[in-house]
């Protein structure tokens, strides 16, 4: 169980005007700028629950994940995960927790995955038999059996992400933090990772917080969604609520000779609207995709769904 009460985090940074002159000025006198990454946040997640944490870049998603995984100390407020204060970094807590960051690798670059896994086995003191079973199970379901003996830096991005997932789940964590695990992956790899997480969640029921920039990830995996904007939660509720709000909308990105624009269109009117656009404009490019996270958030703010 995760319980967060009035959690606040402020970062202090210096402002520097551009150029050498600005640097000199900053050398003598520094103007401090504080940024509230999290503003008194409250959250409760039950055992076995998976939530999707979404928000624009810099909204505070990663900061929250880093506080809950014990990497960063909060400025004020309380948080307990499985009864532990994360930033006290007790081994009993760290043994049951795992963090996956799409942007940062945890396996050793110059070594085959199996070597890194051996080290993790030692770090987490995983018994031989469980270790063997886990490797087999994870490699099978992720379909990376043949990649385990290759140096990680020689693998493709998609394969590497699967290896990262394996590394993070070897010790069967009770709590999993996933920070943009599908970032930069091609569609089929994204799908594979999603599919895997779905089954894993069903089978082992860890507490999972997933942050993602892809609406698809959230739609597939998270029945509950929390939206964060400028350090505050603006929505905490069921995915179905968001979907109802958005209806079954698709987003059209159009590039014409004159300009580019975006329109949100209900799925049912997709063909008529597209035809209309083609008729009235000289279209150079047209993309049909899901509304972006930013669009979703904006839409929710506009429609004034009661923030919790």
């Amino acid at each position, binding site marked *: 169980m995760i319980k967060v009460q009035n959690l606040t985090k402020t970062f202090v940074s210096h402002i520097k005007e551009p150029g050498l002159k600005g640097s000199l000025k900053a050398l003598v006198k520094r103007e401090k700028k504080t940024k509230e990454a999290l503003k008194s946040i409250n959250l409760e997640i039950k055992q076995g629950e998976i939530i999707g944490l979404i928000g624009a870049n810099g909204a505070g998603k990663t900061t929250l994940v880093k506080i809950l995984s014990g990497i*960063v*100390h909060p400025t004020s407020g309380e948080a307990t995960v499985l009864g532990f204060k994360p930033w006290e970094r007790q081994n009993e807590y760290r043994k049951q927790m795992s*963090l996956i960051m799409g942007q940062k690798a*945890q396996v050793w670059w110059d070594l085959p995955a199996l070597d890194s896994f*051996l080290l993790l086995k030692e770090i987490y003191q995983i018994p031989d038999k469980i270790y063997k079973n886990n490797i087999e199970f994870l490699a099978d379901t992720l379909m990376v059996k043949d990649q385990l003996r290759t140096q990680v830096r020689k693998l493709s991005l998609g394969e590497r992400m699967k290896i990262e997932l394996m590394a993070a789940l070897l010790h069967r964590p009770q709590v999993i933090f996933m920070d943009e695990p599908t970032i930069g992956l091609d569609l089929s790899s994204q799908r594979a990772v999603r599919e895997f997480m779905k089954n894993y969640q069903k089978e082992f029921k860890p507490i999972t917080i997933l942050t993602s920039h892809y609406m698809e990830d959230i739609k597939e995996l998270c029945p509950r969604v929390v939206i964060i904007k400028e350090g505050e939660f603006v929505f905490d509720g069921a995915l179905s609520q968001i979907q109802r709000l958005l209806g079954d909308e698709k987003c059209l990105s159009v590039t014409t000779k004159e300009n580019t624009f975006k329109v949100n269109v209900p799925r049912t009117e997709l063909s008529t609207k597209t035809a209309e656009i083609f008729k009235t404009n000289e279209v150079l490019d047209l993309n049909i995709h899901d509304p972006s996270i930013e669009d979703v958030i904006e839409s929710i703010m506009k429609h004034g769904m009661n923030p919790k």
Partner: protein
Amino acid sequence: MKRYLRLYLYFLQFSFSKAMEFRVDFTFRILMDVIYFVVNILLFKVLFLHTDLIGGWTQEQMMVFVGSYLLVDSFNMTVFATNLWWFPSYINKGDLDYYLIRPVSPLFFLSLREFSANSLMNLLMSLAFFIYTLVSYSAPIGMGQLIGFILLLINGFLIYYCIQMLMVLPVFWTHSPRGFIDLFYSLGIAMERPDRIFKGWLRIFFTVVIPFSLIASYPAKYFIEGLDTAALIHVTLVSVTLWLVMLYVWKKALQSYSSASS
């Protein structure tokens, strides 16, 4: 403890398989180390052509001292230096994250992960030279004298590590690319001089504030002429304090770690 030993064996294993891959680097490093060695030994040899005593030590005694600091230095180069060299970039780029979530001391991980297999030859050479200086020592060597000497050298090695850490840790606040590690290497020359040449405030500086003289010079002095109780207490106090200060700064540093965002 046993677990940490096993982890270290993995580090060794990984580092060796990595080092084998870069052969040019491997040979080049050995060449550089040999030059560094010869220069150090020759420096004192040349000085002794003109005088019989330096800082009260004869050539033979001086060689024990040279052997001592070369040994400590090569141990440091092999065990710690590579790790601490990368330390600032771990902090500035936020790569520390994955060390902090493991149920293992992050300090252990960060300081020991990379064993510099390239420097191993250097370590063996300095060890050989060190033993040679002892074997060719003309006065008889007592058992207690030898054990005390080695213990003090191990202590010196840990002091060397602590000082280095204290030069690197400010990176948590300054976010500079190297910390004060360059300062460390320039001040480090003090380790390669007998402590008798430092007088006044400079002496206080190098025996108390940044105790480079305690690393090799004091152990060598213990071996050659013995240290009185006051000096031994001095070494113990300074070493323990330094260690505690380092751990304290490390703790504070982690509290203010902001983890560069991804």
